[in-house]
């Protein structure tokens, strides 16, 4: 047999499985790859974006770029520059629950088509949508939000044009504020609210400056496991299967851990004095009707109508299956 091959794996955030779900994934993935290939392929972890920011890492890995034999966990900011259609998987209020999202990212036609198209454009393989931190929730310190009407006149932190459009369609305004400045901005009232998974709200101690938490399942938070094409193709069929399986198994563990963690984090926020609210199905429909059309309209220039329609259709199916 050949000598062991080492592959570098890069991702964002600290090497701390408690606070960084992507690291948890990377650790398990490394373990499963090394077990599955009997040590013929070893993985070396590069946390903290050590090999560059999202775009730089995607350039490093793709065929037109530097085509390095690496594995990368990319966020939307990394995938979108080469495959903007990925945004169609982040339409607000798409999924009713975790099961629906899991079904969508395991089996849907949208997901399979995405994998093919991504490979065509970059030579690289898109393997998994790694669950990363639960659904995004709204927070604010002005009033309890139960329906789109409650947003009128509030100022929110909007990190991209999409978020800003979403707030505008509810009658609120959106302002970009970097993460490091967010706590102060919420405290001094530069903005009244923001959206993030409970995990990040806790990480940024935002419960100290935010009173109300609305668990509206806004967006499913995930990052993407991407592998350099030449590297994966150079492996033996057995090794290749082992790598693909390792991604699946590690992601399954992440989903388990995240479901637990999200509940715990929400409880923590409530303990610290936040008032949490889960909208009823009728209220969720109201959010969907008010928020989706403008967002989808905006996305058309990036993701194209066909991809958007396919994603919405697959999401509807997934929601049905997960009922």
């Amino acid at each position: 047999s050949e000598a062991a091959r080492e592959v570098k794996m890069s991702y964002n955030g600290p090497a701390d499985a408690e606070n960084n779900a992507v690291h948890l994934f990377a650790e398990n993935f490394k373990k499963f790859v090394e077990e599955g290939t009997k040590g013929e392929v070893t993985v070396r972890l590069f946390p903290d974006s050590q090999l560059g920011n999202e775009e730089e890492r995607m350039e490093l890995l793709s065929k037109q770029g530097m085509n390095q034999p690496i594995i990368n966990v990319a966020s939307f900011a990394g995938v979108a520059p080469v495959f903007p259609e990925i945004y169609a998987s982040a339409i607000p209020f798409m999924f009713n629950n975790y099961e629906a999202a899991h079904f969508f990212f395991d089996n849907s036609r949208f997901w399979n088509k995405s994998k093919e198209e991504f490979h065509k454009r970059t030579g690289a393989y898109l393997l998994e949508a790694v669950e990363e931190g639960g659904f995004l929730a709204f927070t604010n310190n002005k009033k309890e939000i139960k329906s789109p009407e409650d947003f009128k006149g509030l100022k929110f932190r909007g990190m991209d044009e999409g978020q800003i459009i979403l707030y505008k369609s509810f009658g609120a305004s959106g302002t970009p504020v970097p993460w490091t400045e967010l706590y102060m901005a919420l405290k001094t009232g530069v903005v009244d609210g923001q959206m993030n998974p409970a995990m990040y709200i806790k990480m940024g101690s935002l419960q100290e400056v935010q009173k109300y938490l609305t668990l509206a399942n806004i967006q499913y938070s995930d990052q993407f496991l991407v592998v350099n094409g030449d590297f994966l193709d150079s492996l033996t069929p057995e090794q290749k299967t082992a790598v693909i399986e390792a991604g699946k198994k590690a992601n399954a563990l992440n989903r388990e851990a995240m479901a637990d963690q999200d509940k715990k984090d929400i409880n923590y926020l409530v303990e610290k004095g936040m008032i949490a609210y889960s909208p009823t199905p009728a209220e969720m429909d109201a959010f969907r009707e008010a928020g989706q059309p403008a967002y989808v309209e905006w996305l058309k220039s990036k993701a194209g109508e066909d991809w958007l329609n396919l994603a919405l259709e697959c999401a509807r199916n997934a929601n049905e299956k997960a009922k």
Partner: protein
Amino acid sequence: MDEARHPENKGSRLERLISGLERFSAWTACFFLVVNVGDILLGIFCRYVLRSSIVWTEEVARFSLVWMVMMGALGAAVKGDHMVIDFVVPRFPAALRRLVEWGRFFLAAGILSLMIWLGTVNAVQIWHMKTLALNIPKTIPLLSLPVGFGFLLIGTIFLHFRKGEE
């Protein structure tokens, strides 16, 4: 920008070329600095006075900064602002000093040429990538590298041969 700094301006062609090139890059770089300051002030104005923000101010700030930096590189070279240890070589005997100066020149010219080439490849290959807020090709900020290094390379060659003339 000021010719007073070169009082011994002999009006040689080389001299005119250098100062012309410097003046062009200086004005371009200063233009980007003004854009930069104005852009940030505009951001504050919109947030506090108009109570809303523009998404593109952050990108304009970053891109005008890299263009400013790269266009300012030639001026920094002409005026001697690039950080250099310059107290060792002048103590060398004349022949050795000349040798080191030529070595430095070839190294700088080589590295700058390499960076121009690599920067061009990078900028051109990324033509299809659009920036998030402005939705312009990422090539536009990336081009600052080969262009700025291009000016610096031409300047380095001129400056080296001006020194030779003296």
